[in-house]
């Protein structure tokens, strides 16, 4: 559904994107993760044709965004963090103006969407009086009109309360279930990405440093938080079992490794073991691993 190929972009001579590529299949929810300034929003900007690409190409359902942005964006709905509406106009008038830019405004469809996002009672109030959550619901309504096939969400749950976040997550998952909606989800909230996405990419300093299924990240490899001295002996023994050092005194081992055997070997080697805590590698761990400052 969405294909991003070798995107590069420079801002003031500095590389913002260095050949980003990924693909999102129809009906898939795909997460983009990265620090501030990593290049997530630039990627989204290029997909939406708001930012020009230095090189590379984006296609939506086979239509090139660079060559035919209007046609390509017909299938796209987008939501940004802190959606900016015309505060002095009602929610309904905002919908009319924004949706009217895509084509005729279908009142019936708009009413249905407004009801679906739970804004019916306040839709004729001025947006200036809306809470952040209501703005986000209105943003969702405008992005779903007329009928997009893919939603691009840029930090959509930022600033929402836990209830709002849950509502938003359930809504997006519901859209996928009902309409087979494809979603590109750009977020800092790792738990959200973990709960919503099928696959995830990690962008670091304009480069894609990781891509994989979220299920693969829920890695079943045995992991240990291990402290023992002398450290040299510990490292030697653990590496002998194929252990791999992770940030924060954490080690992961090949799947077949038996942890008691490792501990026994440590003791037999004369190491004083002070902590052995089994840990599961979470998405946060993966994220931190790929974004730790000692990475090249």
């Amino acid at each position, binding site marked *: 559904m969405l294909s991003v190929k070798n995107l590069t972009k420079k*801002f003031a001579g500095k590389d913002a994107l260095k050949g980003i590529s990924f693909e999102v299949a129809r009906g898939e929810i795909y997460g983009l993760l990265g620090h501030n300034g990593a290049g997530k*929003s*630039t990627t989204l*900007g290029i997909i*939406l*044709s*708001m*930012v*020009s690409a230095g090189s590379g190409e984006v296609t939506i359902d086979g239509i090139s965004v660079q060559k035919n*942005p*209007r*046609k*390509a*964006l*017909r299938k*796209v*709905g*987008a939501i*940004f*963090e*802190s*959606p*900016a*509406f*015309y505060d*002095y*106009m009602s929610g309904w*008038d905002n919908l*009319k*103006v*924004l*949706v*009217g*830019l*895509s*084509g*005729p*405004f279908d009142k019936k469809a708009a009413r249905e969407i407004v009801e679906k996002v739970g804004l019916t009672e306040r839709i004729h109030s001025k947006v200036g009086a809306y809470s952040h959550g209501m703005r986000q619901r209105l*943003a969702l309504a*405008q*992005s779903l009109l007329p009928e997009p096939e893919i939603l*691009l969400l840029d930090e959509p749950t930022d600033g929402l309360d836990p209830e709002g976040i849950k509502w938003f997550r359930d809504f997006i998952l519901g859209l996928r279930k009902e309409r087979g909606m494809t979603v590109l989800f750009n977020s800092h909230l790792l738990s959200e990405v973990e709960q919503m996405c099928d696959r995830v990419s990690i962008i670091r300093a304009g480069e894609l440093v990781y891509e994989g299924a979220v299920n693969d990240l829920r890695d079943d490899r045995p992991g240990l938080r291990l402290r023992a001295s002398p450290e040299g002996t510990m490292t030697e023994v653990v590496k002998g079992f194929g252990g791999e050092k992770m940030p924060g005194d954490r080690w992961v081992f090949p799947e077949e490794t038996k942890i008691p055997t490792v501990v026994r070997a440590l003791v037999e080697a004369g190491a004083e073991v002070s902590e052995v805590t089994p840990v599961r590698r979470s998405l946060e761990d993966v994220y931190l691993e790929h974004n730790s400052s000692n990475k090249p």
Partner: protein
Amino acid sequence: MMFFSQLRGELKKLFARKRTYIGYVVFLIFEALLLTLWVKVGRAQFEELAERNFIPVELLSSSLTATYWIMGFSMFLLGSIYFALVAGDIVAKETEDGNMRMVLSRPISRLRILVLKYCAVMIYTVTFVIFVGVTGYGMALLAMGSEGGLFIWNPEMFILAVYPDRNEAFQRLFMGACFMGLSMCVVSSLGFFFSCLKIKPAAASVMALSVFFIDFVLQNIPFLANHKDAFITFRMANWIYVLQENIPWERIIESYAILMGLNISLFIMGWMVFQSRDFKT
């Protein structure tokens, strides 16, 4: 059809803002002030001038003549500032507020977005000038009654015209308001152009006003008197020729063709900048 519906949306954005109406209110107050000054001070001087030149005072000291003065002064003093403010906001404010990202995420070309905004600003400009004319005339009617014709005197543009017939005077004045509206479109085009650049809305307005007033000051430097035709503000002032007894259409068409060319050039330059811009948070 779609274009007009989108244009309606653009006008709605413009007219739904309360501050748009602050401008209307300010103009009404300013017009009332000018009219009061005219009735209390200007009228007597004008009547004396008319008598010295053997012009029948009862025909010329009228609501239509007062309207002419109100329109001329209020537009020059306040109109330029006001149009520069509105046009300077039209793109830059939406960019600053983040609305532009919402707009650009829709399947619509940037050219079309700008055409819609430009048309909205031009409609606003012309109708605003006509509003000032109509309300100025309404106030003058209340203060001075409906009698009398129209007396036009502008030594800088070498115009002296007298219209004792009220119908003809009214038609000429209305035509004048329309042409004045077209002239003021240049200020709006300047504001629009600067609004397309990557600058704050206030900066766009200040830049437009700076160009306008620098042009006006240069135009009035004595040693440049023979080159007045080269200045935008002189061309803009050509609206007054529709009030001349024998309208010099050739001169008017030439000036408005130049102004239109300038407007189109400003639009194209603004579009080129806007088209090449990246819109990020």
